Each structure stands twice: as C-alpha cells, then as structure tokens.
C-alpha cells in the first residue's frame, strides 16, 4: 500500500499531500496546473519533496528525517505520461522491452495480445497515431512489471473517439493484472469509469477519498456540463430497418445508434448525464427507445444542478436534472424510477471489431471488465441484496 505525507515546492507553488492508497484503483482529480503532475513526479522519484515521507508496501522511498531518497530506477513504479514519451529511435517492440526487469508481471506476449500491438511491433513511434502511441506507452509501463502504475492524463491529448476506445484497455490493468494504479485526470467521466475512489487536489492540498461522483459537486462548471456515463457492451443485433442496434451490457439490452457497427463487436457506449430523463411511471407514450427501471441511490445539488445517481441493472448512471424537476417529482434516495434516454443520445465506439476467422480473446476479456461507475464494495453488497428485481433485468422494456 502506498503511504505518503509530504510537502513539495516548485517556485512559489507549494503542495501538501497526505494519504494512503486504500483502493487498488484511485483517481486523482484537479483542475489544470493544480499540482497533479508534481505529486506523481514525487511518487516516481523524478522530483524530491521538500520534506516528509513516501513508502510503498512498507518500503520507504523517501524520508527527509533520515535523508533517504531512493532513485526512480529502484522504485518499480510505472509511469504513463501525458505525452507518450516513446523513444523515437526504437521500434514499438524495443520500446516495450526497454524497462523489462525480472519480476512477476504481465508478459510481453500477453501485453501485445491485450493491447492489440501485433501489427505495430516493427514500426517506429512517428508512424503511429495518437491513440496507438498511448496504447504502446501503457504497455511499455506495464512490461516493466511495476508495483504501482501512475497514469498522468494519458488520454488528454487524444480526441473523444480515441479516448473512449482506450478506456476499456486501461480497465484491464485493474481487472486482469490487478496492478494498483493512480489515474490523474480532469475528466470525471474517465475517473468514474476506472476508479472506485478519488483524491482531489485544490489550492495546493491533496484531500480525499471521495466517490468519483461526489467530485461532480466540487468541480468546475465546464466539466459538469460534459459528464458522460461510460458503459461497455457487445453488439447483439443490428436492425437497420428500425434504425437502431441492440447492445448487450451485462445482460441489459440497450437500443443505440447504428454508427456502422456489426454483430459481435465489443463497443463502448457514452451517454451524457444531461441527456437522461427520470420518470416515475413507465413511459409508454414517449419516443425514447430506452427505459430502464432503477432506484435512486444518491441525490445532491451544486451550482443550481441536481445530480442523481441511479442504479439501473447493476450499473450506476449519473443523471443531471433541474432543481425544479427534482422538487416536483419529489425525488429522494431509494425511490424507484425509470431511466429514459434516446438511442441517438448514445455514442457508440467500437473498441474491438469482431475478429474475422479466429476469434481473439479480447471481447471475452472485455466482458470481465464490464462495469459502469464502480462503487465501494461494502455498499455494492448491501445494494445487491436489496435490489434483486432491478438486477434480474425483468423490468426492461426492450426485453420483449
């Protein structure tokens, strides 16, 4: 477990950080230039804090009282930078093998398979797209068998589609290899997809832990506007004559936009929080193609927006509402509601097309990583016991 309590200064900026990594996957949220990268650099050993200590699994990396500072090459911490920092004079394969050390961890072959790097191995970084480069960067960090992986806004330099395509790969770090990681981002969408808890940096202080959706209330208005629910699934049916296709997300069938997918594709769905309606009665006279029965978990208000977290079919969806609507419907935690959204509100991104010929392992691996807004385990168990009918998927309109 990572434990730290230090103060670091860069010019006139000072950062105070104290905490421990109680969760294997933790997000680190904060506005631009709030000290997120400085914090990671201290953990990795690229920057020396002014005073304090840092330890991982009981091994002290830094202790100013004992004048101890372990150099970065003896910390076994993986680091994925905002810009991939691939070595331009090496092929993808040599990049991946560069940091290899004798320690149990993911094998190179396994990484090539999971991150789909086979066709890229002999290329040089300048012959790769932004998304490919970032995939190689993550694989390279993992090939070094890290005890902890730091991800510093690895998707910030990519466009929306590449971001959504890479997220499921990152989820595998947690699901498949169980390597603890710290995911830095100013996108709550990404943090809530990957991590169950998050720290927050503001005004030179790191604090936490929060549930990712709790941070919605603390964040800047622009990131509130764009919050998206991210859901993994497989395409089960394509029905051009009806204008939609059916994505199976953990047994729950959602009708989504056609977007050029074919049956069997592993996809990632992106659904903006502001495009979701809540209804108290079964909405039989609406044009929206999706209505899931669920139950409100939490409600809170910030900056004149009400945020509702609704559990619908074992997945939590964040819904953005006006104060007036929340008041009129008398929304409260525990209330059963219908979650309603249009097929066209869901952006579908193909993560991995159905392999022609031999079926690759990836779709089944993605199956394992399927989850929306993960929550703290204790709470999950309690709620699962409470909501058997919501989990069974009976109430779903498309199921007919």
């Amino acid at each position: 477990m990572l434990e730290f309590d230090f103060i670091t200064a860069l010019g006139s900026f000072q950062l105070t950080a104290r905490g421990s990594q109680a969760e294997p996957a933790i997000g680190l949220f904060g506005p631009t230039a709030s000290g997120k990268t400085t914090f990671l650099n201290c953990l990795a050993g690229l920057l020396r804090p002014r005073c304090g200590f840092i330890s991982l699994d009981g091994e002290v990396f830094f202790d100013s009282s004992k004048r101890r500072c372990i150099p970065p090459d003896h910390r076994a911490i993986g680091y994925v930078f905002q810009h991939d920092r691939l070595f331009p004079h090496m092929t993808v394969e040599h990049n991946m093998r560069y940091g290899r050390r004798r320690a149990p961890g993911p094998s190179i072959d396994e990484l090539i398979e999971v991150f789909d790097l086979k066709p890229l191995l002999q290329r040089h970084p300048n012959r790769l797209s932004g998304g490919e480069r970032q995939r190689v960067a993550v694989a390279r960090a993992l090939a070094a068998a890290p005890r902890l992986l730091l991800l510093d806004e690895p998707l910030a330099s990519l466009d929306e589609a590449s971001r959504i395509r890479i997220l499921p790969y990152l989820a595998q770090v947690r699901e498949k290899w169980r390597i603890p990681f710290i995911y830095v981002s100013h996108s709550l969408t990404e943090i809530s997809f990957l991590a169950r808890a998050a720290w927050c940096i503001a005004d030179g202080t790191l604090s936490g832990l929060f549930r990712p959706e709790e941070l919605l209330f603390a964040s800047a208005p622009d990131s509130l506007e764009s919050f998206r629910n991210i859901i993994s699934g497989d395409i089960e049916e394509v029905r051009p004559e009806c204008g939609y296709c059916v994505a199976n997300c953990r047994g729950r069938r959602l009708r989504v936009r056609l977007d050029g997918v074919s049956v069997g594709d592993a996809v990632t769905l992106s659904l903006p929080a502001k495009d979701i309606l809540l209804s108290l009665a079964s909405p039989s006279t609406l044009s929206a193609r999706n209505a899931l029965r669920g139950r409100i978990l939490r409600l809170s208000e910030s900056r004149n927006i009400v945020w509702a977290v609704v559990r619908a079919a074992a997945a939590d969806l964040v819904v953005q509402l006006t104060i007036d609507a929340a008041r009129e419907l008398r929304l409260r935690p525990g209330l059963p509601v219908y979650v309603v959204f249009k097929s066209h509100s869901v952006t579908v991104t193909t993560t991995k097309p159905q392999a022609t010929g031999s079926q690759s392992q990836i779709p089944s691996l993605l199956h394992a990583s399927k989850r929306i807004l993960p929550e703290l385990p204790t709470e999950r168990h309690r709620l699962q016991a409470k909501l058997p009918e919501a989990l069974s998927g009976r109430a779903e309109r498309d199921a007919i």
Partner: protein
Amino acid sequence: MWSHASAEALKLSLRVSIAATLLMALIGIPVAFWLARRRSLLSRIVECLVSLPLVIPPVVTGHLLLVVLSPNRFLGRRLDRLGLRFALDWKGAVTAAAVVAFPIFLVIARTAFQRCDSRLEDAARVLNSSRARVLFTITIPIALPGLLAAAAVAFARAFGEFGATMMLAGNIPGQTRTIPQAIYSELLAGREGSAWSLTSVSIAVGVAAMAASQMLIRRDSRQIGVAPNA
C-alpha cells in the same frame, strides 16, 4: 598537375584533420552535453571562451597558441620535456585545427543534445534504468546524427585551417605543410596548375562534409518527426 608534394600534403591534411576531429569529439561531447543540460554562469563563461576562435582572426588564435605552447614558455617547456612538441610540428597543426574548429563542433553537438528531450530521459529512468544506461541507450543514440553532423562540419573546417596552423606549426614540407599551406606555397612559386588541383580537393571535401551533415540532420528530423513534445 598532381605531384608527389601534393599527395604528401593531402595525406598530411587527412591525418591532421582526423586527429583534430577525434580530439574535438573527445573533449567536445562531454562539454556539449554539459552546456545543453546545465545553464549557469560558469557554463556561459566556458561557452564564451571556447567560442572566441569563431570571431577572432585565426592568426590571432595561432599567435596565442604559440605564446602558450612555445618550448620557451612555461607550459610548452614542460610538455616538451614529456616529449610533446607542438611548435613547428604536426601535433601543432592538429592543435591549431582543433581549437579553431571547436566552436563549430560545440554549437552543432550542443543543439543535438538539446533536441534530445530530457523528459525522454526521465521516462527511461522510471523504466528501471540507471543514469549511465539512459546516457548510452537514449541520450547518445538520439543525439548521434547531430553529433556525426558536428564531426563532419568540424572536420571540413579543420581540413581548411590555415592561419593558426601557419603561426603554430609553420609550413614545413612533409611535416606541417597541409593542403592550404601547400596552395599558398605553390602560388608563391608560380605553379598555378598545382594550386588549382589542391583547391579542387579542398572544395570537394567541403561539399562532401556539408552534404553529409545535411543528410544526417534531415534523417534526424524525420525520425524525431511528428513526435510532438514527447
């Protein structure tokens, strides 16, 4: 008009320029790396001093070298006792050529190191690599085309060195008469044809060096190419 003397001058020029280039690389690579990575008052002073030969007449540089290395002076006498003679010797020609061409080597080599982003070195450090391994597997390989370009251009400059060489090493046939000295002597003796053949050799070496450096730098840019600020 290719005489035995011309061949001898060419051979000597090649020997002197190669030795001068090796000497520059030996001293210049560490200094260029240091100048690229650390900016301090000391580094500015050092850079200024070693760049001086670029802006003062080579004759002046030669004069100063002669003052320092002459066997009658403090340093020269001690070196002479060790068997290292510079004045009126081919080693003096090497020294003069190296000192005059050094600023050119340094500027190009420093740029080559600056183009190797120190953030790539950080990335390599985090990938379980010691400082030495990072230097030999990341920094130097990425800077290599630039370093070779620096060597090519500095070689050409050393090949053409005249003023400082004349002052320190003189113009002794077979010992210190390099191609520029030979051209000068041939013209004085009225053998214009012979001077022309040596002149063409000089121009060919210059063109080859520039072409080589251009090619190396172009290939380097293509490799670093799209890499944003990786």
